[in-house]
């Protein structure tokens, strides 16, 4: 067991001033094959979201559904910078993270179709993508609700290293939030605890300019200088370009490395733009067509394509081929999801407890479910 008698930061609370990193200078980019993989992932997410909107309009998807188009570089670039077994947690605009993390699109689509083949057996839907195998801890529907949970994931990885046998994995947790979450108390409590307890977590603010129909200036103070949000907690801040995955990675990766080495939190703002409405029901009357056109002309996929063509000899034909492959993959995912059966009514009562408890019927103890005891 780790030394428990040292003057631990856990109870000392001596971190009013941020440590100077100073070492977070941009890293070099990985090899071309990896960069092509990023482009492919971003194309995949975009195509997936196009087909998601289509399926929603065809009533294959119900409930609330939030589209990630325009923001693909943030999920892909940040996840590329961490280890595959580092935990991540996010809010409800979560399809892109699931795919970037490696979830098969068919499970993601089937979840939204409410089918048993979905990543959560159709119990979570669009807003609640969970994938234990890929260390995705959700998909959370309440704005900023995921931020204390994220602090908990980071707390746990640190505890695993310091207290449990076989530690020293030195994980970094990525906790994503939208700009709407800046105005929830839970986020500030989470940041305070992360700073106080020296948690290895990066709060990635995905600033797309709007919390539903409320522009960021209408919702938060110091909207032009969001570094102030974390500086008050003694947590360092950096802004990255959410539309340029290469520069995002180059600037984000050193922050990941710093958090891993120093076991400290960080606040990163990724400036981006969501092309579609807040959810499928949003007519976007709160912003102008001119603004949308301007933002869409600076597109993360267009930017990466151009960079790869200029500097890595990628050809337009190769991009077309990649696009075709992705379209096929998503089309097959949709087909697979359609074929996946609806969950049986038994599923209604499973996973409420780890015990085999069914529902209260009003006149008895909970009924024991007639299911196999799982190992």
């Amino acid at each position, binding site marked *: 067991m780790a030394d428990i008698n040292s003057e631990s930061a856990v109870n000392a609370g001596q971190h009013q001033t941020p440590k100077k990193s100073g070492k977070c200078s941009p890293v070099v980019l990985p090899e071309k094959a990896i960069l092509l993989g990023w482009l492919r992932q971003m194309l995949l997410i975009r195509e997936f979201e196009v087909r998601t909107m289509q399926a929603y309009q065809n009533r294959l998807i119900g409930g609330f559904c939030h589209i990630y188009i325009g923001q693909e570089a943030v999920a892909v670039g940040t996840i590329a910078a961490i280890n595959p077994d580092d935990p991540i947690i996010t809010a409800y605009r979560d399809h892109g993270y699931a795919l970037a993390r490696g979830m098969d699109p068919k499970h993601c689509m089937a979840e939204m179709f409410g089918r048993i083949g979905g990543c959560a057996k159709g119990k979570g839907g669009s807003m609640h993508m969970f994938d234990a195998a890929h260390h995705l801890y*959700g998909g959370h529907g309440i704005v900023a609700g995921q931020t*204390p949970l994220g602090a908990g*994931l980071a707390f*746990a990885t640190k505890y*695993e290293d310091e207290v449990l046998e076989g530690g020293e994995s030195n994980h970094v947790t990525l906790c994503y939030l939208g700009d709407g979450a800046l105005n929830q108390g839970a986020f500030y409590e989470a940041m305070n605890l992360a700073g106080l307890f020296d948690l290895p977590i990066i709060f990635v603010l995905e600033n797309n300019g709007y919390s539903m129909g409320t522009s960021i200036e209408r919702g938060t103070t110091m909207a032009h200088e969001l570094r102030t949000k974390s500086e008050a907690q003694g947590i360092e801040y950096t802004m990255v370009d959410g539309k340029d995955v290469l520069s995002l990675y180059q600037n984000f990766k050193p922050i990941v490395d710093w958090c891993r080495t120093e076991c400290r939190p960080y606040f990163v703002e990724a400036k981006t733009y969501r092309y579609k409405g807040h959810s499928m029901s949003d007519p976007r009357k709160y912003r102008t067509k001119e603004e949308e056109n301007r933002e869409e002309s600076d597109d993360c996929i267009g930017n990466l394509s151009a960079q790869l063509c200029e500097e890595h000899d990628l050809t337009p034909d190769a991009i077309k081929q990649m696009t075709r492959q992705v379209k096929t993959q998503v089309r097959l995912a949709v087909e697979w999801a359609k074929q996946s059966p609806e969950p049986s009514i038994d599923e209604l009562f499973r996973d409420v407890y780890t015990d085999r408890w069914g529902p209260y019927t*009003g006149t*008895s103890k909970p009924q024991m479910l007639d299911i196999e005891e799982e190992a």
Partner: protein
Amino acid sequence: MTVATNNRVIEYREALREAMSEEMRQDERVFLLGEEVAQYNGAYKVSKGMLDEFGSRRVIDTPISESGFSGMAVGAAMRGLRPIVEFMSWSFSLVAADPILNNAAKMLYMSGGQFGCPIVFRGNDGAGGQLASTHSWCVESMYANVPGLKMVIPYDAYDAKGLLKEAIRDDNPVFFLESERLLSTTCHVPEEEYTIPFGQALIRRQGTHCTIISFGRPLHFCLEAAEELAKEGIDCEVVDGRTIRPLDIDTMAASVKKTSTCVVVDQSWSFASVGSEIASQLHAICFEDLDNHVHRVHSDDVPPPYAYNLEQAYLPNTRKICEAVRSATYNT
């Protein structure tokens, strides 16, 4: 030495401490966090000495930040740690409603069984003694409405220890409701290892004329009322439910089938309450056996008052219970 062990009497708060300490010795994934639990030795001295034994990595002082630290503990539980979260009062859990109700209770279901939440939230529930409206919450009726959580209300030190050890070992979120008024009460608690399974009510007093069902602190008044009523020739059976989720309605119904009358004493408000739920279930199960409808005693339907006499009048008390039993048994 053996004799001393067998007759050992300790306080409720010591029983809670023993339960936590024993489980922490056995399982390094278990840790305690909350306001003043470490350096201050617990606002109510429940965790006294635990910092010295387990160190600051496992007995963790948090700031006054219930939403933050409850959520943090839920996140840690999702990774397989087994946090014990101490609320200085369950009244303060209201600002943590999202993590404890939305996240802890629903995580397993929402994730299709992938991420569980083995966590214990524990602390003082109910009136402490002239704490007035904001600090006297009885959360059981409100929170028991939520599927996915378990709920425990121990009455004495023996149950407090056995039920808390069971709660810490449970793979589901357990809401463990203690009472400030019970922390200094004592009873026999063996040194030998034991746990008490959930869903097993305890008959605290045998009787034949009327069944009184309650949980936690009001049991004290139920037992007091039973003694008073015995003088009038009314022989009461007092059933301690021990856990609300799961609810041992079978033991309660068996008692009611024997006595044919029943009073449920629930310290929360009457509207849509644990008491109304139990009454409803008993009316369905014991429809043919009951000589009267199930009577209920609750806190009055007003915010908890500060003034001593008003608070005493507000809470379920011996007088109210006696009146209800007399009415239920047609002895008015």
